[in-house]
């Protein structure tokens, strides 16, 4: 690697060094308490998958260039030059970590591995060695934000075609729209994913609850966050913030997508609207009696997978349980404490990488498959698109014999007129 490239990469590194990041980089005592925390290590047993080992790959470069010690006595901390080989190690560390932050629960100091890995991801972007597909997807989202008019027509036609499906689940009065779009002054802006499964059940439930809602033009998913590009993350987020302000909504409701929810909730700053996950909204409707569900609809035992970005990292823990106890008399917890739930193994952009890493995704999530099977449940439900894809892949790979369902679609299927 030539000096110019290295300097540019180190500038990117420098930009990531805020207070918390420096705490995390200065403090690890390499005590090994986090060893058992990572599902990848627990499933595959290779040292390189221990959280502290992953940090150390980034930390060695930090010690070399950002600590006086790195010049005087580099060997004491095994400080390491930023080289092509270091980039390969960074790739291996960052793209085998789902950013689930389970290890943060174990660490006596609470070191955030996801945050340290965000340095690795940014350096990879700087060196153009990140997974191209993620950047491509992020760019598409950004473009869409810039030129809404271009794709508006196609979007509206697509939505019109879905309305019949919505009405099948919940009848509406004549003159009402099944999927309202671009409604100025609506109370709630629903940000979905591309695909009927994310729009149809949600729409039926909003209509059943008599919500004054409107569907966003944009999809919720934030590929900028997956690839670890702070600028693109913000651009993709801002499209939605702008739309919400333009329509003067009181609440932005994010569909079943963990990263989108966490980014919107925690990164959008102070805004004139609230941010909620669709799970929170559904549990509120049930609590307030705005919708009713039929408990006899699902007879088999149900278990729920807490998506890391929504539960441990987003705080939505009680709401799905409230919903499930309304849907079933046989709801079974997977983990004694939700913050200890195993990651599905698909986060951090890994699912979006598709077939390329299917093998790794399956091997690294063995503990997840075991955990689901121990519950004896027949229905496995979750509230995140990524988790759903990964859990479905696990279901066929390990022949788990469960049915993987979105929580929102279970609510929609059990709606009572």
């Amino acid at each position, binding site marked *: 690697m030539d000096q110019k490239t290295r300097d540019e990469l180190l500038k990117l590194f420098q930009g990531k060094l*805020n*207070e918390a990041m420096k705490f995390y980089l200065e403090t690890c*005592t*390499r005590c090994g*308490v986090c060893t058992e925390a990572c599902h990848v290590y627990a499933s595959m047993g290779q*040292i390189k998958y221990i959280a502290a080992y992953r940090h150390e790959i980034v930390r060695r470069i930090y010690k070399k260039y950002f600590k006086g010690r790195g010049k005087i006595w580099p060997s004491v*901390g095994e400080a390491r030059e930023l080289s092509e080989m270091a980039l390969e190690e960074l790739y291996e560390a960052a793209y085998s970590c789902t950013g689930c932050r389970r290890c943060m629960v*174990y660490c006596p100091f609470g070191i955030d591995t996801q945050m340290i890995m965000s340095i690795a991801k940014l350096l990879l972007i700087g060196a153009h060695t990140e997974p191209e597909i993620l950047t491509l997807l992020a760019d598409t989202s950004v473009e869409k934000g810039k030129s809404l008019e271009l794709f508006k027509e196609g979007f509206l036609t697509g939505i019109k075609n879905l309305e019949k499906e919505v009405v099948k689940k919940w009848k509406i009065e004549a003159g009402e729209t099944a999927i309202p779009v671009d409604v100025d002054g609506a109370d709630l802006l629903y940000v979905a994913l591309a695909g009927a499964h994310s729009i149809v059940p949600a729409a039926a439930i909003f209509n059943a609850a008599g919500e004054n809602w409107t569907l966003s033009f944009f999809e919720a998913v934030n590929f900028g966050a997956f690839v670890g590009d702070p600028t693109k993350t913000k651009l993709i987020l801002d499209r939605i913030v702008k739309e919400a302000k333009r329509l003067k909504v009181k609440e932005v409701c994010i569909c079943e997508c963990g990263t989108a929810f966490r980014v919107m909730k925690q990164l959008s700053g102070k805004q004139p609207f609230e941010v909620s996950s669709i799970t929170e909204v559904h549990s509120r409707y049930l609590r307030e009696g705005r919708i009713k569900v039929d408990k006899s609809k699902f007879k088999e035992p149900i278990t729920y997978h807490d998506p890391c970005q929504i539960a441990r990292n987003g705080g939505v823990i009680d709401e799905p349980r409230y919903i499930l106890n309304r849907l079933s008399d046989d709801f079974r917890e997977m983990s004694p404490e939700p*913050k200890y739930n195993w990651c599905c193994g698909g986060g951090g952009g890994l699912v979006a990488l598709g077939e390329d890493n299917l093998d790794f995704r399956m091997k690294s999530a063995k503990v997840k498959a075991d955990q689901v099977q121990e519950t004896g449940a027949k229905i496995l439900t979750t509230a995140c698109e990524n988790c759903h894809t990964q859990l479905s892949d696990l279901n066929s790979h390990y022949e788990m014999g469960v049915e993987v369902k979105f929580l929102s679609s279970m609510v929609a299927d059990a709606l009572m007129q």
Partner: protein
Amino acid sequence: MEIVYYIILIPMVYVAFAVFFVGTGVRLVKLFREPRNPTTLQIFPDKRPRWMWALHDTFLLPTVRRHNPIFWVFLMLFHISFLLLIIGHLELIGDFRIFQIVQHEVFLGNGFVGLILSISLLFFLFRRFASPNRDLSVPEDYYLLILLFLTVFFGSQMDWARRWYDYGNLSVVEYREYLSSLLYLKPHLSPDLTSSGHSFMLVLHVFFANLFLMFFPFSQIMHSFLSLPMNKLRRG
């Protein structure tokens, strides 16, 4: 030989404390002046009051207790003994009334503080010889532990000598004279201190302690100060 004793017991001590205080102070100020992270770093569920839970996490190490109970026992013993050790050293300078709330002889702990520290340090060291901790550790981790062990071990020797094998030539009186002379910037070494049969232990103890103090601000032991703010971040 005398000149070596002199250098270790007087100028080097001043240098070590200067590096320790200035180094730690400057590094902490620099760290706390960095911009805050724009988003919360909290782990849920939320528990209140958050600062109480952060203190709880910092001082009781609940995650270690849960995931590695044996390690936890040694860690608690070590850190509590370390606190007692600091108090013990303060009493080697002069009398502090509040410390005598629990009546004791200087050096406090009947020699057991040093013993516990030595054993826990050996435990910390040896656990790093086995995989996977061995693969995680870097030289810094071993150096620190070896340095502390040597410091604690030679320090304890002096204590044990007096208490357990009746060696009376060096006593608290001599230590107090030496340490307070350092504190009042009128350094003075009495011949009793440097020419007794156990003087070499004092010199080695002080030598290793000096090295430790000088390494402290630049090492992972900064966790002593950073653990609380980091745990607060996790608690939100």
